[in-house]
């Protein structure tokens, strides 16, 4: 290697371009800039800036970075994979490093150097990266710098889902709406990034020794550094944040380029890039433009201009008025209507994190405009912040969002039979039948079809939403971005940028994607005729003409978009408020002295320790949120006697206690299949002379305890939490743990087969392979057959005798007998309680909810207390395994081959045949099997004209959204009578 060599390293990431010029061993130039997707232009620009350093010399070049691949290929410049480039530089400069953690715009990487080099990149999921931090800052209405500064002042951390930005948003929004301090939220966002890196990338390998942190976000964000250091328990010496952190990849690329024999001069490299721009070949698929010509656009505009509400000047109107407030997840809307339902006043604004202040300001403004001429006779509030605003301003009534939207839509189209509302991060759609809401679909954990997604993209490309939408209308060949989650779309956009797509085409493509997501993912319709004949669309996202047009194109039909599409919730609330003739709303006087303080506390009501946020108002009133049950509210418990099978089963399992025995202790993790078979294994091992120790039901802590050894981040939460249960048992000194491999579950003769799902069946294999500590103890995971006593005896004897040769066949036979008895006793008790619950509900005229899923969904951490919420809303809660015995086996359209699911299908039939019974299905995110069962359960219910409600649950579930769903269900049921 010649030390006079001049080398240029170019690193083009998903959002930024970095350039480093090395002369011999000296870095003579470095530059870091956002490229706003203009990859080629930007590269040429930053290279020409250093013309004076390059001219007259020959030099080597290589390009790295995820967005650099296309350019390198087209320009004929050597490419080096970015992780490899990082490895190159670290080995050169800091050879004693054991782990490198590098966060980029959309990538996260971990490289292990000690004990076998191993490099990990995030997979198709871009959660926990720079782009994610940017998104969160937007949400907090702060710059990244402000957010970072704020995070340093935090006093506590909230759990925020770390898998992807979408989930995190659903967690953060309610926190903000409920008044959590921004400093705490900011630090929690960083913590989520840290957790994501550890869980997603370390995949079972411990991060210790000297750790080097690289990449933009880790260079700029002090708070993030702190979170990493603290979480990984690193000393100052072992946590290295080098000055060149942002440039490591570019430096690696420069050094790598020296291996190549190709040299460039300033002119040759520039012309190579220019040629690359000319030869840009598009490999990604393109779509037809939104409008074929100007005329089409004009017709479109004229048609939609017709759906409008009359506006009346508030300064001249006198008489009664009604107020509607829609305190949504990202925006707050207010509407004041006259006695003719005309608009007197409207307001639409981003929440900027504090809806209470915003509403107060607006109310003061309205009071001022109203003077003595206008009297507010009634008010109603809807949306995420409903209960907070209702309490803060003594609003007359709250109503669930879905109803508010229906009232508004009906005003524009009395025959409306389908409403689609796309807001910031919610998609709501419902069918109307016979004047009542017939079925409701809400997006679950995914908000890929929503507006805030477009907003974030617009901002990242340096545009406002309005500009961005306008550009989209002009796109001549919209890029096809697929119909999956935002995170995937990020990569699709990256790909199209690589292919040189224009901002116009990207904008149009995003609109099409949003629409397709809504139709095919959320509504899951095959064609427009399935939706309805009179479709009303609303919500802020439809104010974007590109989205509206894409929707009509996709449906092949025209729809109505009221001009106040963004205000429909508020308008509906105002229409609803017309039933009042005098209002309790706070007066203009009171507003002047109105103050609002919020503080966060940990509820001590039970072991759940909900994060409560206590809002206190000037007059001493309090509003508490964040609670999973009534306890934290300081209220008397009133629902004690109402049967809740989730609680019953939890109680039953928690009462299985071990008794000291001659063979010592055996640990059983209370997770996955244990929720079904715990009584059986408990009896068997007690009989064999073991003291059975169960791990406790899960909390968030359980998950965190084991998350570092999870190899597959996309597995379901109930499986991932298993790692924590084993850690807990081992921490408690248990040295023998049992969780068998069971291909088949108990055969209840009610399906075509009786499998367990692959994860329940074989998760032990994964645990053994990935949890190092298990090799220090005895982890028993034999393949057993629990279908007959004989087979269980044979398989269990073989396994246990191997473990302890003093165990005899006769002992195992006795144990298996009591195991089967205990299992039957448990099943019978659950079924008896199920029937008692049904009887109780009918005697007390209560609605019944089959809150179904898998046995492990009763775990308080996995089920997130949804059962308690249902009880609060007035349901008697039963489980599928408590009532499935009341239905015979019926033919299914799918292969009915899993034991747990065949119970589901029978439970669905029960709900289908009983008017007082509703079914709500809990689905774990990532459960592949439920893609099949949910469709089947839905058809069973809908064939008989019943509602189907599905709730997707994950690490973190926003109970606010669940509450909306369940309340909408109640609203729909009430409307039905």
């Amino acid at each position, binding site marked *: 290697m010649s030390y006079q060599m001049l080398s240029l390293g170019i690193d083009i990431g998903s959002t930024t371009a970095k350039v480093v010029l090395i002369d011999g061993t000296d870095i003579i130039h470095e530059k870091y800039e956002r490229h706003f997707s203009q990859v080629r232009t930007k590269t040429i620009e930053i290279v020409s800036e250093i013309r004076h350093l390059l001219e007259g010399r020959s030099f080597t070049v290589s390009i790295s970075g995820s967005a650099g691949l296309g350019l390198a290929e087209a320009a004929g410049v050597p490419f080096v994979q970015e992780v490899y480039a990082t490895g190159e530089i670290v080995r050169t400069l800091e050879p004693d490093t054991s782990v490198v953690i590098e966060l980029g715009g959309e990538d996260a990487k971990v490289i292990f150097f000690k004990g076998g080099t191993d490099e990990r990149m995030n997979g198709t999921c871009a959660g926990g990266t720079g782009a994610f931090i940017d998104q969160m800052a937007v949400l907090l209405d702060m710059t990244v710098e402000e957010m970072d500064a704020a995070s340093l002042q935090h006093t506590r951390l909230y759990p925020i889902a770390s898998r992807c930005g979408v989930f995190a948003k659903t967690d953060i929004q309610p926190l903000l709406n409920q008044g959590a301090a921004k400093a705490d939220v900011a630090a929690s966002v960083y913590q989520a990034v840290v957790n994501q890196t550890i869980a997603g990338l370390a995949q079972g390998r411990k991060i210790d020794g000297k750790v080097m942190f690289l990449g933009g976000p880790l260079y700029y964000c002090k708070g993030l550094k702190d979170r990493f250091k603290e979480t990984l328990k690193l000393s100052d010496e072992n946590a290295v944040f080098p000055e060149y952190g942002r440039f490591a990849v570019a430096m690696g690329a420069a050094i790598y380029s020296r291996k190549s024999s190709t040299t460039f001069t300033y002119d040759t490299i520039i012309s190579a890039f220019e040629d690359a721009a000319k030869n840009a070949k598009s490999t990604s698929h393109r779509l037809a433009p939104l409008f074929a010509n100007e005329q089409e656009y004009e017709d479109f505009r004229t048609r939609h201009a017709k759906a409008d509400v009359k506006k009346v000047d508030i300064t001249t109107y006198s008489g009664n008025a009604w107020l509607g407030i829609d305190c949504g997840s990202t925006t707050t809307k207010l509407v004041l209507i006259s006695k003719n339902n005309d608009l007197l006043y409207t307001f639409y604004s981003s929440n900027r994190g504090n809806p209470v202040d915003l509403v107060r300001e607006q109310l003061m403004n309205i009071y001022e405009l109203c003077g003595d001429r206008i009297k507010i006779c009634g008010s109603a509030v809807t949306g995420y912040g409903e209960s907070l605003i209702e309490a803060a301003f003594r609003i007359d009534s709250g109503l669930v969002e879905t109803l508010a939207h229906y009232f508004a839509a009906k005003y524009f189209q009395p025959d409306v039979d389908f409403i689609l509302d796309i807001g910031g991060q919610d998609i709501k759609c419902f069918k109307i039948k016979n004047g009542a809401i017939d079925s409701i679909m809400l997006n679950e954990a995914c908000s890929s079809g929503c507006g805030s997604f477009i907003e974030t993209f617009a901002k990242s490309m340096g545009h406002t939403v309005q500009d961005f939408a306008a550009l989209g209308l002009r796109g001549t060949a919209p890029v*096809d971005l697929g119909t999956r989650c935002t995170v*995937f779309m990020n990569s699709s956009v990256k790909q199209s940028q690589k292919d040189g797509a224009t901002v116009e085409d990207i904008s149009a493509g995003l609109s099409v994607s949003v629409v397709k997501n809504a139709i095919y993912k959320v509504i899951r319709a095959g064609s427009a005729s399935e939706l309805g004949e009179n479709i009303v669309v609303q919500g802020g996202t439809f104010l974007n003409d590109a989205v509206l047009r894409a929707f009509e194109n996709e449906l092949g039909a025209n729809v109505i978009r009221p001009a106040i599409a963004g205000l429909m919730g508020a308008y509906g609330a105002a229409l609803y408020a017309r039933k009042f003739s005098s209002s309790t709303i706070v007066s203009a006087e009171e507003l002047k002295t109105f103050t609002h303080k919020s503080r966060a506390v940990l509820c001590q009501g039970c072991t759940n320790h909900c994060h409560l946020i206590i809002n206190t108002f000037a007059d001493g009133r309090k509003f508490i949120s964040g609670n999973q049950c009534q306890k934290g509210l300081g209220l008397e418990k009133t629902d004690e006697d109402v049967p809740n099978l989730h609680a019953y089963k939890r109680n039953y399992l928690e009462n299985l206690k071990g008794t000291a025995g001659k063979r010592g202790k055996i640990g059983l993790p209370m997770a996955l299949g244990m929720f079904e078979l715990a009584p059986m294994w408990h009896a068997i091992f007690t009989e064999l002379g073991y003291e059975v120790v169960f791990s406790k039901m899960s909390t968030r802590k359980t998950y965190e305890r084991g998350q570092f050894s999870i190899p597959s981040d996309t597995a379901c939460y109930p499986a991932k939490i298993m790692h924590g249960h084993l850690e807990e048992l081992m921490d408690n000194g248990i040295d023998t743990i049992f969780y068998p491999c069971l291909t088949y579950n108990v055969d209840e003769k009610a399906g075509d087969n009786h499998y367990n799902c692959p994860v329940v069946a074989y998760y032990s294999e994964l645990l053994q392979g990935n949890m190092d500590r298990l090799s220090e103890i005895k982890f028993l995971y034999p393949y057993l057959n629990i279908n007959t006593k004989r087979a269980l005896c044979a398989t269990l004897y073989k396994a246990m005798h191997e473990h302890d040769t003093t165990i005899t066949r006769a002992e195992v036979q006795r144990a298996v007998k009591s195991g089967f008895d205990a299992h039957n006793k448990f099943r019978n008790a659950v079924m008896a309680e199920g029937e008692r619950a049904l009887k109780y509900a009918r005697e007390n005229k209560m609605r019944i909810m089959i809150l179904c899923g898998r046995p492990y969904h009763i775990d308080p951490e996995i089920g997130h207390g949804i059962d308690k919420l249902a009880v609060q809303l007035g349901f008697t809660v039963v489980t599928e395994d408590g009532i499935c015995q009341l239905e015979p086996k019926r033919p299914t359209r799918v292969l009915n081959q899993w034991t747990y699911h065949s119970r589901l299908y029978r439970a669905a039939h029960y709900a289908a045949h009983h008017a007082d019974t509703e079914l709500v299905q809990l689905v774990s995110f990532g459960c592949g099997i439920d893609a099949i069962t949910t469709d089947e359960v839905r058809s069973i219910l809908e064939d008989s004209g019943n509602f189907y409600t599905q709730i997707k649950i994950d690490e973190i579930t926003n109970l606010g959204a669940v509450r909306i769903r369940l309340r909408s269900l109640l609203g729909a049921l009430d409307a039905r009578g």
Partner: protein
Amino acid sequence: MDERTYIPFTEEMKKDYTILIPTMLPMHFKMIISVLKTYGYKADLLENYGPEVTEAGLKYVHNDTCYPAILVIGQFLDALKSGKYDPHKTALILFQTGGGCRASNYISLLRKALKRAGYDYVPVISLSFAGIETHPGFKLDLPKIHGMMYALLYGDLLMTLVNQCRTYELEKGQAQALADKWVARLGDELGSGAKISYKKIKQNYRKILNDFADIPVKRYNAVKVGVVGEIFVKYSPLGNNNLEQFLVDEGAEVVVPGLLDFMLYCVYNNVVDYDIRKTGFWKSKIMAVAYKFLCKKKNDLIAIMEDHGLFTPFTHFEDTVKAGEGYIGIGTKMGEGWLLTAEMLELGHTGVKNIVCTQPFGCLPNHICGKGMMKPIKEHNSDINIVAIDYDAGATKVNQENRLKLMLANARENLEKETVNV
């Protein structure tokens, strides 16, 4: 299913229906079609690719379902809509293992999709050894299975020979062209209705080997990359964004374990089921006979390859079984199960240290047998370089290729070190 919820394929239909077969392994499947022809069926291998296929799949299948289901169903629907076939004279066929993975439900998903698209009258044949459904016009009897088995053996042989030549051939495309010629010729033989002569088949093996040996090549020390994973995305170019071609373009030699191994895996699971679960004694005895027979067929082919000497022969399945021992229990039998883990190890043992583990995003069995086994595999075999790639309707090529490039960069570095040490 106790009540028939599907349209059976009748004797009547056999006369004039065209059976459509999805793309997975074109060479294997073309020869299988020839076998079917012998028995009076008219079958057609689907060759429609492109975004319309994915689009049709996403439109009619639950989007959280695995990617292979979306593609296969999308391919069927796209074909039915193309106008190329008379939907009233068309039947579809899908393989159904009846295992505990959701793949056993592809058929139900396909029928649901057909119903939504207005083709509920189109019969779907379940091709299953487990006998999940009955179709009077299509019975999977021993003679058919026998013929198909040879189609698989030929297919595996041609596949491995193409892979062992295409990286080095002087004239690009020559190996594949030769394979295509053989597929046509072998198809004619298998479809002629004449009695299958094993002697002739063995002669064919030798002729094929000789033909491939004649392809002018320039051999060099190329990086060897093994491909394992969920069966559809492992084999199908439609499913894996043309992975093999990408690797070849990068100058690597691709090693893909054959399809017969998957069949052997299914049979072997039934053999050992009695040992593991203490039920199904007689079934396991019968399956043991089938297992022995299949192993013999594979081992005969291996012997001929060894005898010929120029090409790397397959691994004996008995050795593949052993390769997974100590890593994963043989009872893990859903999806690709223990075979996936064993194949990674087998590749490592035979000098293929770089492995792409392909899986549809969120594939349940692969959480355990694929991603779940990488840590122990690497711990005990520090020289194995594995990359897991997720395939999905929304996953982009650029992301996949970036990860593959990382794997290849490491592979080249390791190869260089090795060469220096030698």
